[in-house]
């Protein structure tokens, strides 16, 4: 189903999509999208949505199943509290991506902004995966409780830090992988950055294979690079703060 979003309010656009999903439609092509918010929000079917244009904030918020493929950049709040599904961004992504995400994948080919992957968490077979091709800014992986957050640092100018300040503050679960050096000064106490082992490389290969396929990137070359793994010292970072 093809929907021309020009002139439509996001509420109208989302209503049209949801009505069609309810009738069994599984393939969507949205054209002339320009800042329409909440695309895919609240949909719990594994439908395919292709977005031509720039989707608005909260793309895929609270969604559980849809596979959304964009044509270029996307804005803030992608995959907010997302339960399942896929979001593919060939360009750059804005701030607060993957906030409290519990499942599904977000693939960004370019860079992402501030507050990426805050408080992602995993549960049973649900494990959120966020992969950023370029670099991220400050507060990445704060309160990380589960899932995988991967920063590849592709196409970056020499000397460009791949993560910003306050990286992994309050992290108490999950794993963050950065392909390249991480200045220890950017990390908060309570986490360690170590070089990866063979197990990690296999994990990365499994996670990166669909990502590389999505963007036609050389998997072997990317997996073979220098990776740093960031993990928390404890799952109980606040255990020592109180008098009982």
């Amino acid at each position, binding site marked *: 189903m093809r929907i021309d979003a020009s002139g439509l309010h*996001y*509420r109208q656009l*989302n209503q049209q999509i*949801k009505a069609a999903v309810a009738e069994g439609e599984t393939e969507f092509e949205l054209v002339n999208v320009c800042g329409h*918010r*909440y695309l895919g*929000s*609240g949909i*719990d079917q594994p439908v395919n949505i292709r977005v031509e244009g720039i989707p608005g*904030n*909260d793309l895929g*918020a*609270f*969604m*559980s199943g849809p596979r959304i493929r964009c044509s270029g950049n996307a804005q803030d*709040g992608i995959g*907010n*509290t997302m*339960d399942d599904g896929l979001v593919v961004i060939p360009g750059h992504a804005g701030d*607060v991506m993957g*906030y*409290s995400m*519990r499942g599904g994948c977000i693939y960004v080919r370019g860079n992402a902004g501030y*507050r990426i992957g*805050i*408080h992602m*968490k*995993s*549960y049973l077979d*649900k494990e959120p995966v966020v992969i950023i091709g370029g670099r991220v800014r400050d*507060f990445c992986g*704060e*309160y990380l*409780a*589960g899932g995988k957050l991967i920063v590849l640092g592709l196409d970056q100018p020499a000397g460009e830090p791949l993560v910003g300040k306050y990286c992994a503050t*309050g992290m*108490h*679960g999950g794993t963050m992988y950065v392909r390249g050096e991480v200045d220890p000064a950017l990390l908060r106490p309570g986490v360690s950055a170590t070089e990866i082992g063979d197990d990690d490389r296999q994990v990365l290969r499994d996670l990166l294979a669909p990502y590389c396929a999505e963007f036609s990137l050389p998997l072997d070359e990317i997996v073979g690079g220098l990776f740093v793994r960031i993990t928390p010292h404890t*799952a*109980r*970072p*606040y*255990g*020592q*703060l*109180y*008098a*009982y």
Partner: protein
Amino acid sequence: MPLTTVHPQFIIKRDMDLCIQCGVCTRQCSYDAQKIDPEDGRVSSDPRTCVGCQRCVTLCPTGALVVTERELHGRSHPNWSLQVQRAIHRQAESGGMLLTGMGTDKNYRIYWDNLVLNASQVTNPSIDPLREPMELRTFLGAKPERVEFDDEGNPVSQAGPLLTLDTPIMFSAMSYGSISFNACYSLARAAKNAGTYFNTGEGGLHRDLYEYADHAIVQVASGRFGVTPQYLDAAAAVEIKIGQGAKPGIGGHLPGEKVSAEISATRMIPEGSDAISPAPHHDIYSIEDLKQLIYALKEATNYSKPVSVKIAAVNYVVPIAVGAVRAGADIVAMDGTRGGSGATPTVIRDNVGIPIEFALAAVDSRLRQEGIRHQASLVVAGGFRNSADIAKAIALGADAVYIGTSALIALGCHMCQSCYTGKCTWGICTQDPYLTKRLNPEIGTRSLTNLLRAWSLEIKEMLGGMGMNSIDSLRGNREMLRGIGLTTEELEILEVAPVGR
């Protein structure tokens, strides 16, 4: 027990003439304050670990026990009370923040006690609720600015999605995790019985409570625990939790040892891991961001249910509440400084936030001044002790109230403020199966249903006395209130006339 400088807070008196050495006290105490000697079977007490929960006192079959607060020891000092000294000793020993539970025990003025209600005399005769219908039905959500009719006299104005309450009292947010399943179950069933709503707090909705979901307000807090499309779909309303009266501005965390298999499944986090709720929502740094989340939730639920925003009453509660209304909130819930908590740093509980009376009066006034009072309902919380407090709150401008602490007292809470220990002897604020089975959900449901019935009857009685037959006539009707013993400034903020005028 190691040597400590912390003095015991309670004295346990056992009348040896009455004590039959049955050992009930030792089995009831989860704090090791009552012990039984394994050799000779004699019971003894250790006041150093006693929290004053009164469980042993209540269940002692011969009435042999008395637990009282220890008064002064040594020389008294107004600045350095026993409580102050004890806090310093505990912190000197541990180096940690002091934790506590329930609402503040600091002696702040309770302004409800300085407000009195009106009654009819001679003119506008009072109504007897026993013989005339008395309407407590309350609708929460966005209302139309004015009611318009078509040519045939049918109303054409549309209200937003509304919650329908048979009594203007709802159960405040208490999560599964902070309280036991039996407590949650009792609240859910009582809400259904009484035609009102319970609030899940931020701990998700247990699968066995989904059948009560049409009476559930589900929370979306900074931790987003258990927030799934099903959770949002099932609920009657969705509440974004920004703050809580007992701990404005700070987050919370459920320690890993309380994250049992059932809680793990409900919160959707691994068993035994800390459930950390960051202080802010990291996707909300402004009113515009709040609007984005409000509409994200409306989109996710197809605009089919009201979205509430719960904030703590703080200095700038007025612009924040007005901002929330302008951001699209259908309900704004405000929690005053006397509001309760399962675990909160004592220093925050006792020193941050403002009383709900002023927050309510100021917010209601400003919303009316701006002409947007109809766009959202106001729900207030924070230490409502009885039906009179509730009637006064409604007269000050509230649409409904949330009760938390009084509901827990109905379930057996004796206000020992030790909820954070997870050892609640009354089976309310614990996950220990040995303790939780003490709260029978049948009895709990009945107690809560009784409390709501009793308070509703009293509210009807008060309404009838004022010559009103509907709670709507009292709502925001500050003419029905007079202030006693309040300063001019306090009266001005409350927009209430002094007694005698």
